[in-house]
Protein backbone atom coordinates (compact mmCIF):
# COMPACT_ATOMS: atom_id res chain seq x y z
CA UNK A 1 0.00 0.00 0.00
CA UNK A 2 1.35 3.43 -0.87
CA UNK A 3 0.08 6.95 -0.42
CA UNK A 4 0.07 9.00 -3.57
CA UNK A 5 1.46 12.50 -3.20
CA UNK A 6 -1.07 15.31 -3.55
CA UNK A 7 -1.47 16.76 -7.03
CA UNK A 8 0.87 19.71 -7.52
CA UNK A 9 -0.70 23.11 -6.87
CA UNK A 10 -1.03 25.62 -9.69
CA UNK A 11 2.56 26.25 -10.42
CA UNK A 12 4.38 29.18 -11.98
CA UNK A 13 2.84 30.35 -15.20
CA UNK A 14 -0.40 28.45 -14.81
CA UNK A 15 -1.04 29.96 -11.40
CA UNK A 16 -0.34 33.44 -12.72
CA UNK A 17 -2.72 32.86 -15.63
CA UNK A 18 -5.52 31.85 -13.26
CA UNK A 19 -4.82 34.87 -11.06
CA UNK A 20 -4.81 37.20 -14.06
CA UNK A 21 -8.15 35.79 -15.26
CA UNK A 22 -9.57 36.24 -11.76
CA UNK A 23 -8.33 39.81 -11.49
CA UNK A 24 -9.65 40.64 -14.97
CA UNK A 25 -13.03 39.12 -14.10
CA UNK A 26 -13.39 41.07 -10.84
CA UNK A 27 -12.23 44.28 -12.55
CA UNK A 28 -14.58 43.70 -15.49
CA UNK A 29 -17.59 43.15 -13.23
CA UNK A 30 -16.66 46.23 -11.18
CA UNK A 31 -16.36 48.41 -14.30
CA UNK A 32 -19.65 46.99 -15.63
CA UNK A 33 -21.37 47.93 -12.37
CA UNK A 34 -19.83 51.42 -12.46
CA UNK A 35 -20.79 52.02 -16.10
CA UNK A 36 -24.22 50.47 -15.59
CA UNK A 37 -25.11 52.48 -12.49
CA UNK A 38 -23.44 55.84 -13.09
CA UNK A 39 -22.28 56.40 -16.66
CA UNK A 40 -25.04 55.04 -18.89
CA UNK A 41 -28.26 57.05 -19.20
CA UNK A 42 -31.66 55.77 -18.01
CA UNK A 43 -33.99 54.35 -20.66
CA UNK A 44 -36.81 56.43 -22.12
CA UNK A 45 -39.45 53.85 -21.21
CA UNK A 46 -37.89 51.58 -18.58
CA UNK A 47 -36.05 54.43 -16.78
CA UNK A 48 -33.49 53.16 -14.24
CA UNK A 49 -34.84 49.64 -14.38
CA UNK A 50 -33.07 49.19 -17.69
CA UNK A 51 -29.77 48.98 -15.82
CA UNK A 52 -30.46 45.33 -15.05
CA UNK A 53 -29.86 44.67 -18.74
CA UNK A 54 -26.11 44.89 -18.09
CA UNK A 55 -26.26 42.04 -15.58
CA UNK A 56 -29.18 39.74 -16.32
CA UNK A 57 -28.50 38.73 -19.97
CA UNK A 58 -24.75 38.13 -19.38
CA UNK A 59 -25.50 35.92 -16.37
CA UNK A 60 -28.19 34.08 -18.33
CA UNK A 61 -25.77 33.58 -21.25
CA UNK A 62 -23.22 31.98 -18.93
CA UNK A 63 -25.80 29.84 -17.12
CA UNK A 64 -27.98 28.62 -19.96
CA UNK A 65 -25.51 28.30 -22.79
CA UNK A 66 -21.86 28.43 -21.75
CA UNK A 67 -21.88 26.46 -18.49
CA UNK A 68 -24.57 23.98 -19.40
CA UNK A 69 -23.21 23.53 -22.93
CA UNK A 70 -19.71 22.90 -21.61
CA UNK A 71 -21.01 20.41 -19.05
CA UNK A 72 -23.03 18.56 -21.72
CA UNK A 73 -20.11 18.54 -24.17
CA UNK A 74 -17.69 17.29 -21.50
CA UNK A 75 -20.16 14.57 -20.55
CA UNK A 76 -20.43 13.41 -24.17
CA UNK A 77 -16.65 13.38 -24.49
CA UNK A 78 -16.42 11.28 -21.32
CA UNK A 79 -19.06 8.85 -22.56
CA UNK A 80 -17.35 8.48 -25.95
CA UNK A 81 -14.81 5.67 -25.39
CA UNK A 82 -12.15 7.19 -27.65
CA UNK A 83 -12.06 10.49 -25.78
CA UNK A 84 -12.73 9.14 -22.29
CA UNK A 85 -10.62 10.89 -19.69
CA UNK A 86 -11.05 11.87 -16.07
CA UNK A 87 -10.41 15.46 -17.09
CA UNK A 88 -13.73 15.62 -18.97
CA UNK A 89 -15.60 14.40 -15.91
CA UNK A 90 -13.92 16.95 -13.68
CA UNK A 91 -14.62 19.70 -16.22
CA UNK A 92 -18.28 18.61 -16.41
CA UNK A 93 -18.87 18.74 -12.67
CA UNK A 94 -16.97 22.01 -12.26
CA UNK A 95 -18.95 23.58 -15.09
CA UNK A 96 -22.28 22.26 -13.85
CA UNK A 97 -21.68 23.40 -10.29
CA UNK A 98 -20.63 26.93 -11.24
CA UNK A 99 -23.44 26.95 -13.83
CA UNK A 100 -25.99 26.10 -11.14
CA UNK A 101 -25.01 29.23 -9.23
CA UNK A 102 -25.37 31.29 -12.41
CA UNK A 103 -28.77 29.72 -13.15
CA UNK A 104 -29.94 30.66 -9.66
CA UNK A 105 -28.62 34.20 -10.23
CA UNK A 106 -30.43 34.31 -13.58
CA UNK A 107 -33.70 33.55 -11.81
CA UNK A 108 -33.02 36.07 -9.03
CA UNK A 109 -32.07 38.93 -11.38
CA UNK A 110 -34.90 37.97 -13.73
CA UNK A 111 -37.33 38.01 -10.85
CA UNK A 112 -36.17 41.47 -9.74
CA UNK A 113 -36.51 42.74 -13.31
CA UNK A 114 -39.93 41.14 -13.59
CA UNK A 115 -41.03 42.94 -10.44
CA UNK A 116 -39.85 46.24 -11.90
CA UNK A 117 -41.33 45.83 -15.39
CA UNK A 118 -44.27 43.44 -15.01
CA UNK A 119 -45.16 44.30 -11.40
CA UNK A 120 -44.82 40.73 -10.12
CA UNK A 121 -41.90 38.77 -8.66
CA UNK A 122 -42.80 35.69 -10.63
CA UNK A 123 -44.79 35.22 -13.81
CA UNK A 124 -45.54 31.85 -15.36
CA UNK A 125 -43.66 32.94 -18.40
CA UNK A 126 -42.26 30.13 -20.54
CA UNK A 127 -38.63 31.14 -20.25
CA UNK A 128 -38.79 31.73 -16.50
CA UNK A 129 -40.47 28.39 -15.98
CA UNK A 130 -38.02 26.54 -18.21
CA UNK A 131 -35.07 28.14 -16.44
CA UNK A 132 -36.51 27.07 -13.09
CA UNK A 133 -36.81 23.54 -14.46
CA UNK A 134 -33.21 23.71 -15.63
CA UNK A 135 -32.15 24.67 -12.11
CA UNK A 136 -33.94 21.60 -10.74
CA UNK A 137 -32.23 19.44 -13.39
CA UNK A 138 -28.87 20.85 -12.35
CA UNK A 139 -29.66 20.15 -8.70
CA UNK A 140 -30.50 16.58 -9.76
CA UNK A 141 -27.09 16.32 -11.39
CA UNK A 142 -25.39 17.56 -8.24
CA UNK A 143 -27.45 15.09 -6.18
CA UNK A 144 -26.23 12.22 -8.38
CA UNK A 145 -22.74 13.58 -7.96
CA UNK A 146 -22.97 13.32 -4.19
CA UNK A 147 -23.96 9.64 -4.18
CA UNK A 148 -20.96 7.72 -2.87
CA UNK A 149 -19.38 5.66 -5.65
CA UNK A 150 -16.05 5.06 -7.29
CA UNK A 151 -14.86 7.61 -9.82
CA UNK A 152 -15.92 5.75 -12.93
CA UNK A 153 -19.44 4.80 -11.78
CA UNK A 154 -20.07 8.35 -10.61
CA UNK A 155 -18.70 9.83 -13.82
CA UNK A 156 -20.86 7.50 -15.89
CA UNK A 157 -24.08 8.30 -14.05
CA UNK A 158 -23.34 12.03 -14.00
CA UNK A 159 -22.56 12.10 -17.72
CA UNK A 160 -25.86 10.39 -18.54
CA UNK A 161 -27.81 12.80 -16.32
CA UNK A 162 -26.12 15.79 -17.94
CA UNK A 163 -26.79 14.50 -21.41
CA UNK A 164 -30.45 13.74 -20.76
CA UNK A 165 -30.91 17.11 -19.07
CA UNK A 166 -29.30 18.83 -22.06
CA UNK A 167 -32.41 18.00 -24.04
CA UNK A 168 -34.16 20.57 -21.86
CA UNK A 169 -31.95 23.43 -23.07
CA UNK A 170 -33.43 23.61 -26.61
CA UNK A 171 -36.83 23.75 -24.92
CA UNK A 172 -35.58 26.75 -22.95
CA UNK A 173 -34.29 28.38 -26.12
CA UNK A 174 -37.30 27.80 -28.30
CA UNK A 175 -39.94 28.10 -25.61
CA UNK A 176 -40.27 31.81 -26.36
CA UNK A 177 -41.65 30.83 -29.73
CA UNK A 178 -43.54 27.75 -28.53
CA UNK A 179 -45.61 29.28 -25.81
CA UNK A 180 -47.29 32.64 -25.46
CA UNK A 181 -44.86 34.61 -23.40
CA UNK A 182 -44.38 37.90 -21.64
CA UNK A 183 -40.62 37.78 -22.14
CA UNK A 184 -39.03 40.17 -24.58
CA UNK A 185 -37.25 38.79 -27.63
CA UNK A 186 -33.55 39.05 -28.42
CA UNK A 187 -31.99 42.46 -28.16
CA UNK A 188 -28.58 41.83 -29.75
CA UNK A 189 -29.55 38.98 -32.05
CA UNK A 190 -32.90 40.05 -33.35
CA UNK A 191 -33.93 38.83 -36.83
CA UNK A 192 -32.77 42.06 -38.50
CA UNK A 193 -29.28 41.55 -37.05
CA UNK A 194 -29.19 45.18 -35.99
CA UNK A 195 -28.80 45.90 -32.30
CA UNK A 196 -31.68 47.88 -30.84
CA UNK A 197 -29.55 49.66 -28.25
CA UNK A 198 -26.74 52.07 -28.96
CA UNK A 199 -23.67 53.87 -27.67
CA UNK A 200 -22.55 53.55 -24.06
CA UNK A 201 -25.40 51.15 -23.30
CA UNK A 202 -24.27 48.70 -26.00
CA UNK A 203 -20.63 48.87 -24.89
CA UNK A 204 -21.54 48.36 -21.25
CA UNK A 205 -23.66 45.37 -22.17
CA UNK A 206 -20.81 43.96 -24.25
CA UNK A 207 -18.40 44.47 -21.34
CA UNK A 208 -20.93 42.72 -19.08
CA UNK A 209 -20.86 39.66 -21.34
CA UNK A 210 -17.05 39.59 -21.36
CA UNK A 211 -16.75 40.19 -17.60
CA UNK A 212 -19.22 37.50 -16.57
CA UNK A 213 -17.70 35.04 -19.05
CA UNK A 214 -14.28 35.68 -17.49
CA UNK A 215 -15.80 35.28 -14.03
CA UNK A 216 -17.19 31.91 -15.09
CA UNK A 217 -13.84 30.77 -16.52
CA UNK A 218 -12.03 31.78 -13.34
CA UNK A 219 -14.50 30.02 -11.04
CA UNK A 220 -14.40 27.00 -13.35
CA UNK A 221 -10.62 26.70 -13.09
CA UNK A 222 -10.64 27.09 -9.32
CA UNK A 223 -13.44 24.55 -8.96
CA UNK A 224 -11.62 22.13 -11.26
CA UNK A 225 -8.62 22.34 -8.96
CA UNK A 226 -10.83 21.58 -5.94
CA UNK A 227 -12.24 18.50 -7.74
CA UNK A 228 -8.70 17.22 -8.37
CA UNK A 229 -7.81 17.63 -4.69
CA UNK A 230 -11.09 16.06 -3.51
CA UNK A 231 -10.50 13.01 -5.72
CA UNK A 232 -6.97 12.68 -4.38
CA UNK A 233 -8.34 12.88 -0.84
CA UNK A 234 -10.94 10.16 -1.58
CA UNK A 235 -8.32 7.89 -3.06
CA UNK A 236 -5.86 8.22 -0.21
CA UNK A 237 -8.24 8.61 2.74
CA UNK A 238 -8.08 4.98 3.83
CA UNK A 239 -4.32 4.76 3.42
CA UNK A 240 -3.83 7.95 5.43
CA UNK A 241 -6.12 6.77 8.22
CA UNK A 242 -4.33 3.42 8.41
CA UNK A 243 -1.02 5.18 8.52
CA UNK A 244 -2.19 7.36 11.39
CA UNK A 245 -3.37 4.30 13.33
CA UNK A 246 -0.04 2.59 12.85
CA UNK A 247 1.69 5.76 13.98
CA UNK A 248 -0.43 5.83 17.17
CA UNK A 249 0.52 2.24 18.00
CA UNK A 250 4.21 2.88 17.59
CA UNK A 251 6.44 3.37 20.70
CA UNK A 252 6.85 7.08 21.42
CA UNK A 253 10.62 7.19 21.59
CA UNK A 254 11.06 5.36 18.34
CA UNK A 255 10.38 6.40 14.78
CA UNK A 256 7.05 5.55 13.17
CA UNK A 257 6.73 1.78 12.89
CA UNK A 258 5.95 0.51 9.43
CA UNK A 259 4.56 -3.05 9.22
CA UNK A 260 6.52 -3.98 6.17
CA UNK A 261 9.42 -1.88 5.26
CA UNK A 262 8.95 0.27 2.22
CA UNK A 263 5.26 -0.47 1.71
CA UNK A 264 3.95 2.73 3.32
CA UNK A 265 6.04 5.80 2.68
CA UNK A 266 5.67 8.81 4.93
CA UNK A 267 2.65 10.99 4.08
CA UNK A 268 3.30 14.20 2.20
CA UNK A 269 4.12 17.22 4.32
CA UNK A 270 1.11 18.70 6.03
CA UNK A 271 -1.13 15.77 5.18
CA UNK A 272 -2.08 13.07 7.66
CA UNK A 273 -0.93 15.13 10.61
CA UNK A 274 -4.48 15.73 11.80
CA UNK A 275 -5.71 13.99 14.92
CA UNK A 276 -9.19 13.16 13.67
CA UNK A 277 -9.65 9.81 12.04
CA UNK A 278 -12.53 9.13 9.70
CA UNK A 279 -14.85 6.14 9.93
CA UNK A 280 -12.91 4.52 7.13
CA UNK A 281 -10.11 3.81 9.58
CA UNK A 282 -12.35 1.50 11.54
CA UNK A 283 -13.32 -0.55 8.52
Amino acid sequence: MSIAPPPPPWSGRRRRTVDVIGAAAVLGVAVTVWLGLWVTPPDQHLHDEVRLVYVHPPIAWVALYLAFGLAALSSVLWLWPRTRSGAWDRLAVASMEVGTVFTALTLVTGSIWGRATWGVWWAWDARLTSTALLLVLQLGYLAVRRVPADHEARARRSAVVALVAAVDVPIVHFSVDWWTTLHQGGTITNPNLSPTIHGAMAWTLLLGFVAFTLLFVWLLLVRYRVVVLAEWREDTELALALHERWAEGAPRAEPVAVPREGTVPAPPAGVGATESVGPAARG
Partner: protein
Amino acid sequence: MWRDGVLVAGKDLRIEVRSRVVLHQVVPVGVLMLVLFAFALGPATAPMVAAAPGLFWVAVLFTGVLAVQRSAALEGGDGTRDGVRLSGLDPAGVFLGKTAAVTVQLVVLEVVLCAGVVLFYGAHVRSLGTLVASSAAGTVGLAAAGTLYGALAAGLRVRETLLPLLFLPVAAPVLVAGTKAWQSALGTSGVGADDPWLRLLLVFAVVYLALGVVIFGPLQEAP
Protein backbone atom coordinates in the same frame (compact mmCIF):
# COMPACT_ATOMS: atom_id res chain seq x y z
CA MET B 1 -32.38 -5.92 -30.61
CA TRP B 2 -36.09 -6.30 -31.30
CA ARG B 3 -36.09 -9.97 -30.33
CA ASP B 4 -34.30 -9.16 -27.07
CA GLY B 5 -36.79 -6.37 -26.48
CA VAL B 6 -39.73 -8.73 -26.86
CA LEU B 7 -38.06 -11.21 -24.49
CA VAL B 8 -37.44 -8.59 -21.79
CA ALA B 9 -40.90 -7.05 -22.17
CA GLY B 10 -42.45 -10.54 -21.92
CA LYS B 11 -40.38 -11.25 -18.82
CA ASP B 12 -41.39 -8.01 -17.07
CA LEU B 13 -45.07 -8.38 -17.98
CA ARG B 14 -45.08 -12.03 -16.90
CA ILE B 15 -43.70 -11.01 -13.50
CA GLU B 16 -46.39 -8.31 -13.28
CA VAL B 17 -49.18 -10.75 -14.21
CA ARG B 18 -47.99 -13.11 -11.49
CA SER B 19 -47.24 -10.55 -8.78
CA ARG B 20 -49.81 -7.86 -9.77
CA VAL B 21 -47.93 -5.19 -7.86
CA VAL B 22 -48.75 -2.42 -10.35
CA LEU B 23 -52.38 -3.50 -10.70
CA HIS B 24 -53.03 -3.96 -6.99
CA GLN B 25 -50.89 -1.18 -5.57
CA VAL B 26 -49.91 1.46 -8.14
CA VAL B 27 -53.27 1.79 -9.96
CA PRO B 28 -55.22 2.23 -6.68
CA VAL B 29 -52.77 4.99 -5.70
CA GLY B 30 -53.63 6.76 -8.98
CA VAL B 31 -57.36 6.50 -8.28
CA LEU B 32 -56.73 7.71 -4.73
CA MET B 33 -54.98 10.77 -6.14
CA LEU B 34 -58.06 11.62 -8.23
CA VAL B 35 -60.18 11.39 -5.07
CA LEU B 36 -57.73 13.57 -3.13
CA PHE B 37 -57.74 16.16 -5.94
CA ALA B 38 -61.55 16.19 -5.68
CA PHE B 39 -61.28 16.83 -1.95
CA ALA B 40 -58.96 19.75 -2.69
CA LEU B 41 -61.11 21.29 -5.45
CA GLY B 42 -64.68 20.09 -4.83
CA PRO B 43 -67.41 19.49 -4.15
CA ALA B 44 -68.53 21.74 -7.04
CA THR B 45 -67.84 19.95 -10.34
CA ALA B 46 -66.99 23.05 -12.44
CA PRO B 47 -63.42 23.50 -11.07
CA MET B 48 -62.82 19.78 -11.37
CA VAL B 49 -63.95 19.66 -15.01
CA ALA B 50 -61.70 22.62 -15.83
CA ALA B 51 -58.71 21.07 -14.07
CA ALA B 52 -59.37 17.47 -15.15
CA PRO B 53 -56.75 17.29 -17.96
CA GLY B 54 -53.97 18.62 -15.73
CA LEU B 55 -54.99 16.48 -12.77
CA PHE B 56 -55.03 13.39 -15.00
CA TRP B 57 -51.44 13.99 -16.15
CA VAL B 58 -50.21 14.88 -12.67
CA ALA B 59 -51.67 11.60 -11.43
CA VAL B 60 -50.01 9.74 -14.33
CA LEU B 61 -46.67 11.39 -13.62
CA PHE B 62 -46.58 10.58 -9.92
CA THR B 63 -47.92 7.05 -10.25
CA GLY B 64 -45.55 6.65 -13.21
CA VAL B 65 -42.66 7.16 -10.78
CA LEU B 66 -43.95 4.20 -8.78
CA ALA B 67 -44.28 2.05 -11.92
CA VAL B 68 -40.75 2.93 -13.00
CA GLN B 69 -39.40 2.15 -9.54
CA ARG B 70 -41.13 -1.20 -9.66
CA SER B 71 -39.72 -1.89 -13.12
CA ALA B 72 -36.17 -1.11 -11.97
CA ALA B 73 -36.65 -3.13 -8.78
CA LEU B 74 -37.25 -6.28 -10.85
CA GLU B 75 -33.51 -6.36 -11.46
CA GLY B 76 -32.76 -5.24 -7.89
CA GLY B 77 -32.17 -8.74 -6.51
CA ASP B 78 -28.71 -10.07 -5.74
CA GLY B 79 -26.71 -10.22 -8.91
CA THR B 80 -29.72 -9.87 -11.22
CA ARG B 81 -28.29 -6.82 -12.97
CA ASP B 82 -25.06 -8.69 -13.53
CA GLY B 83 -27.09 -11.62 -14.81
CA VAL B 84 -28.83 -9.42 -17.37
CA ARG B 85 -25.48 -7.96 -18.41
CA LEU B 86 -23.92 -11.40 -18.78
CA SER B 87 -26.89 -12.86 -20.63
CA GLY B 88 -25.67 -11.42 -23.94
CA LEU B 89 -28.89 -9.47 -24.47
CA ASP B 90 -28.49 -6.30 -26.51
CA PRO B 91 -28.65 -3.35 -24.02
CA ALA B 92 -30.78 -1.41 -26.51
CA GLY B 93 -33.15 -4.39 -26.62
CA VAL B 94 -33.28 -4.51 -22.81
CA PHE B 95 -34.11 -0.79 -22.75
CA LEU B 96 -36.83 -1.10 -25.39
CA GLY B 97 -38.28 -4.17 -23.68
CA LYS B 98 -38.46 -2.54 -20.28
CA THR B 99 -39.86 0.64 -21.83
CA ALA B 100 -42.54 -1.40 -23.61
CA ALA B 101 -43.50 -3.19 -20.39
CA VAL B 102 -43.77 0.11 -18.48
CA THR B 103 -45.80 1.57 -21.37
CA VAL B 104 -48.30 -1.29 -21.19
CA GLN B 105 -48.65 -0.87 -17.43
CA LEU B 106 -49.08 2.91 -17.76
CA VAL B 107 -51.72 2.42 -20.46
CA VAL B 108 -53.74 0.22 -18.06
CA LEU B 109 -53.30 2.90 -15.40
CA GLU B 110 -54.42 5.65 -17.80
CA VAL B 111 -57.53 3.76 -18.89
CA VAL B 112 -58.57 3.46 -15.24
CA LEU B 113 -57.71 7.13 -14.53
CA CYS B 114 -59.57 8.27 -17.67
CA ALA B 115 -62.65 6.41 -16.48
CA GLY B 116 -62.15 8.07 -13.11
CA VAL B 117 -61.95 11.53 -14.67
CA VAL B 118 -65.20 10.92 -16.58
CA LEU B 119 -67.02 9.38 -13.62
CA PHE B 120 -65.75 11.47 -10.69
CA TYR B 121 -65.24 14.84 -12.39
CA GLY B 122 -68.04 14.66 -14.95
CA ALA B 123 -65.75 15.39 -17.91
CA HIS B 124 -66.93 14.60 -21.44
CA VAL B 125 -64.67 13.24 -24.15
CA ARG B 126 -65.20 15.30 -27.35
CA SER B 127 -62.33 14.00 -29.46
CA LEU B 128 -61.38 10.40 -28.74
CA GLY B 129 -58.66 10.40 -31.44
CA THR B 130 -56.77 13.33 -29.91
CA LEU B 131 -57.16 11.77 -26.48
CA VAL B 132 -55.75 8.41 -27.55
CA ALA B 133 -52.95 9.82 -29.74
CA SER B 134 -51.69 12.29 -27.13
CA SER B 135 -51.92 9.72 -24.34
CA ALA B 136 -50.02 7.14 -26.39
CA ALA B 137 -47.23 9.54 -27.38
CA GLY B 138 -46.95 10.93 -23.86
CA THR B 139 -46.92 7.49 -22.29
CA VAL B 140 -44.12 6.19 -24.52
CA GLY B 141 -42.04 9.30 -23.72
CA LEU B 142 -42.65 8.95 -19.97
CA ALA B 143 -41.83 5.24 -20.06
CA ALA B 144 -38.61 5.83 -22.03
CA ALA B 145 -37.35 8.64 -19.78
CA GLY B 146 -38.46 6.74 -16.68
CA THR B 147 -36.74 3.51 -17.71
CA LEU B 148 -33.55 5.42 -18.39
CA TYR B 149 -33.56 7.12 -15.00
CA GLY B 150 -34.80 3.96 -13.27
CA ALA B 151 -31.72 2.10 -14.51
CA LEU B 152 -29.53 5.01 -13.46
CA ALA B 153 -30.88 5.11 -9.91
CA ALA B 154 -31.07 1.31 -9.56
CA GLY B 155 -28.71 -0.14 -7.01
CA LEU B 156 -28.25 3.16 -5.18
CA ARG B 157 -29.34 3.44 -1.58
CA VAL B 158 -30.98 6.80 -2.30
CA ARG B 159 -32.92 5.58 -5.36
CA GLU B 160 -36.39 6.25 -3.88
CA THR B 161 -35.64 9.92 -3.35
CA LEU B 162 -33.30 10.41 -6.31
CA LEU B 163 -35.62 9.07 -9.01
CA PRO B 164 -38.44 11.65 -8.58
CA LEU B 165 -35.90 14.48 -8.45
CA LEU B 166 -34.38 13.36 -11.74
CA PHE B 167 -37.48 12.16 -13.54
CA LEU B 168 -40.20 14.71 -12.77
CA PRO B 169 -38.45 17.84 -14.17
CA VAL B 170 -37.59 16.00 -17.36
CA ALA B 171 -41.19 14.80 -17.65
CA ALA B 172 -42.57 18.33 -17.24
CA PRO B 173 -42.96 18.91 -21.03
CA VAL B 174 -45.21 15.84 -21.16
CA LEU B 175 -47.35 17.35 -18.41
CA VAL B 176 -47.65 20.66 -20.26
CA ALA B 177 -48.23 19.23 -23.72
CA GLY B 178 -50.43 16.37 -22.51
CA THR B 179 -52.61 18.76 -20.53
CA LYS B 180 -53.02 21.08 -23.53
CA ALA B 181 -53.90 18.18 -25.82
CA TRP B 182 -56.39 16.82 -23.32
CA GLN B 183 -57.97 20.25 -22.89
CA SER B 184 -58.76 20.13 -26.58
CA ALA B 185 -59.92 16.53 -26.43
CA LEU B 186 -62.21 17.20 -23.47
CA GLY B 187 -63.35 20.48 -24.99
CA THR B 188 -62.51 22.54 -21.93
CA SER B 189 -60.22 24.95 -23.77
CA GLY B 190 -62.60 25.54 -26.63
CA VAL B 191 -59.89 25.60 -29.29
CA GLY B 192 -58.58 22.83 -31.45
CA ALA B 193 -54.92 23.76 -31.07
CA ASP B 194 -53.88 20.21 -30.39
CA ASP B 195 -51.42 19.69 -33.26
CA PRO B 196 -48.32 21.47 -31.86
CA TRP B 197 -48.74 19.77 -28.52
CA LEU B 198 -49.15 16.36 -30.08
CA ARG B 199 -45.98 17.00 -32.10
CA LEU B 200 -44.15 18.02 -28.94
CA LEU B 201 -45.21 14.77 -27.27
CA LEU B 202 -44.02 12.79 -30.30
CA VAL B 203 -40.67 14.61 -30.38
CA PHE B 204 -40.23 13.96 -26.65
CA ALA B 205 -40.96 10.26 -27.12
CA VAL B 206 -38.62 9.89 -30.11
CA VAL B 207 -35.77 11.82 -28.45
CA TYR B 208 -35.86 9.81 -25.23
CA LEU B 209 -36.26 6.50 -27.06
CA ALA B 210 -33.19 7.33 -29.17
CA LEU B 211 -31.23 8.50 -26.10
CA GLY B 212 -32.14 5.33 -24.26
CA VAL B 213 -31.08 3.08 -27.13
CA VAL B 214 -27.69 4.81 -27.28
CA ILE B 215 -27.03 5.33 -23.57
CA PHE B 216 -28.52 2.27 -21.89
CA GLY B 217 -25.47 0.14 -22.74
CA PRO B 218 -22.90 2.37 -21.02
CA LEU B 219 -25.34 2.89 -18.15
CA GLN B 220 -25.61 -0.85 -17.49
CA GLU B 221 -21.86 -1.04 -17.11
CA ALA B 222 -21.99 1.15 -13.98
CA PRO B 223 -21.63 -1.11 -10.92
